[in-house]
């Protein structure tokens, strides 16, 4: 990444992308659908990244990566990692078919979903990853009435060799996971939690704080599943060890998008977070 790009101030994607590319050491071809990353990449004929990139229509990220892998193989070009990187709209929603197909075919590539929990590039509309109770452009008054889908669990069900969750606000953990993924063959999926100041409505200066709070409340859990073996990592691992889980209410309270959330919804979210956290603890113990 070159200095200076068009993203919003405090954007977690900028931070995440820098560490992702660093871990791949430049030997990479990137494919990107319509997303905030398109904004980061800039406008023709100027770009803020120094890697070869193929922009692709919204629904097609997994297929575009499959084409890059097939083309490289057909031409006998070795040593390059194909990286597909898309937002939650491009992954959970419109891109899930192409991603699922590519994973089922065990395509040799890394897919990274950066999750800002909504269609932020188009001005914050609800996505399949927008949480219960959050206000968005298309849930403007009542807030979203359904909770997120668990995309990492969906990808785990594809029996791919490496599945991980990470956070832009824990960049070393993210870096290590991308580095590990780079050395593995087959489809590798990494989910990256990326707080969005304008979409979630918190001050630009608080991105890291929000990301850390997400992990401390287990809203965001950092783990990896390598060949079926589950492991908590980084701050989530120490949270499990110390047992000092903070209530989800603290994460919710600092974001304006939850201003109309009801007590019942907060309680439902806490139950959801608890259930997932307990499952993670159980899996971590078993493995």
């Amino acid at each position, binding site marked *: 990444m070159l200095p200076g790009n068009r993203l919003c101030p405090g954007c977690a994607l900028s931070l995440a992308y820098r560490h992702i590319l660093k871990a791949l050491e430049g030997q990479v071809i990137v494919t990107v659908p319509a997303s905030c990353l398109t904004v980061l990449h800039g406008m023709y004929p100027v770009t803020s*990244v120094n890697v070869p990139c193929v922009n692709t229509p919204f*629904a097609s990220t997994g297929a575009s990566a*499959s*084409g*890059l892998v097939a083309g490289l193989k057909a031409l006998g070009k070795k040593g390059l990692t194909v990286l597909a990187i898309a937002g939650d709209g491009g992954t959970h929603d419109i891109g899930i078919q192409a991603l699922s197909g590519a994973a089922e075919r065990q395509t040799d590539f890394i897919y990274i979903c950066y999750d800002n929990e909504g269609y932020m590039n188009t001005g914050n509309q609800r996505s399949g990853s927008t949480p219960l109770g959050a206000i968005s452009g298309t849930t403007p008054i009542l807030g979203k009435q359904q909770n997120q889908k668990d995309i990492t669990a969906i990808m785990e069900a594809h029996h791919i060799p490496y599945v991980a969750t990470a956070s832009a606000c824990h960049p070393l953990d993210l870096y290590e996971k991308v580095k590990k993924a780079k050395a593995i063959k087959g489809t590798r999926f990494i989910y990256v939690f990326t707080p969005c100041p304008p979409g979630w409505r918190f001050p630009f200066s608080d991105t890291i704080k929000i990301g850390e709070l997400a992990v401390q409340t287990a809203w965001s859990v950092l783990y990896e599943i390598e060949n079926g073996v589950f492991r908590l990592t980084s701050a989530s691992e120490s949270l499990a060890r110390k047992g000092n889980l903070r209530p989800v209410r603290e994460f919710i309270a600092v974001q304006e998008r939850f201003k109309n959330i009801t007590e019942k919804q907060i309680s439902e979210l806490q139950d959801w977070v608890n259930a997932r956290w307990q499952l993670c603890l159980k899996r971590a113990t078993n493995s």
Partner: protein
Amino acid sequence: MKKANIQILDGNHAAAQGAKLSRVQVIAAYPITPQSPVTEKLSELVEGGNLDAEYIAVESEHSALAVCTSASIVGARTFTATSSHGLAYMHEMLHWVAGTRLPVVLVCVNRAIGAPWNVQNDQQDSISQRDTGWIQIYARNNQEIVDSVIQAYKIAEAVYVPVMVCYDGYILSHTEMPVDVPAQVDVDRFLPPYKPHTILDPSHPRNYNLVTLANPRVNAEGVLCHGYMELRYLLQEALQNSKETIMKVGREFGELFGRSYARMFWEDRLDDADIVIVATGSLAMEAMVAADMLRKEGHKAGVLGLRVFRPFPKSELVRALRKSRLIVVFDKNISYGSEGATCSEIKSALYGSSINAAIRNFIVGLGGRDVKARELAEAVNKSLLSLKEGILNKEYPEWICYI
């Protein structure tokens, strides 16, 4: 002249042979009736070790063309095939491929489009995609399918515009005919390896299809680069100029294989014809039988069988139609609220020329409705009678159906 290698092939296997002989490197396809045997044959060739290519069994047509797009950007020669709803599902990617100026070749086995469901033939599917920036070539028989696929790569890779080779579902796709299959050594001589205009190399990083503004913009070196509108202009210019390449490639093919494709359309007895039937695809063969019937009745009838629909051969067509006083256009498609697409094109081409022929348009053969030569001849006779009304150009087409 080469020694003939006659094989009995249906249209789908002729298309697969064309792809194989063109040494395609990446194939991505999704099954749909009546295209499926193309993909089955190619996967059999790849699995059996008889075709050195990557076969990607994708989960949708949208993905099929996305795979071809990215593989083509890497520099591979790519192939896909589809029909009807599959082509409609590719619509977004069709624009994307043409906009990226990639020489992808797609075979469209023409089939009606729903609702309601129908798996039989008409040309609504490919005609509906005429504005996506692809060259469109229509085959009349299975020989033309294999020949056109091979030529398609040479054309596409010369002008960096994708090519869609279209042929009628069932009428050709599932009908066996003798086909002279070119020898690999000759195809290799005719079609050199693909030289991509794209580069994907970390040491020379390029970013393809970034957001591009309407107006030209200065790059980091201070050079003014094209805006979106200039890039669109260049695509149109490439399509306009591709006529020369299409005819040149067709001529070269003829010199090597003895079957010339040096014209944008097929002419049958146009030298003296004052009644010209215009049709596309296998319908052009049926129209020749109708012309025989009309000749027996004493009419000077001929046939113009359109081979290339995009770019549309306007000036060539005006020359070919110069003796006509009645042009009867049969369309297996309809632009709802207007008329058949071919008819509109012919009218547009003739405007301002010295040809003042009456034009009649008939919509035929939708959803596999059988089209008999006798019906075509009757439609021409009906048109001749209607000339007495003194109407050159009717507002809407007539339909050969039971309403």
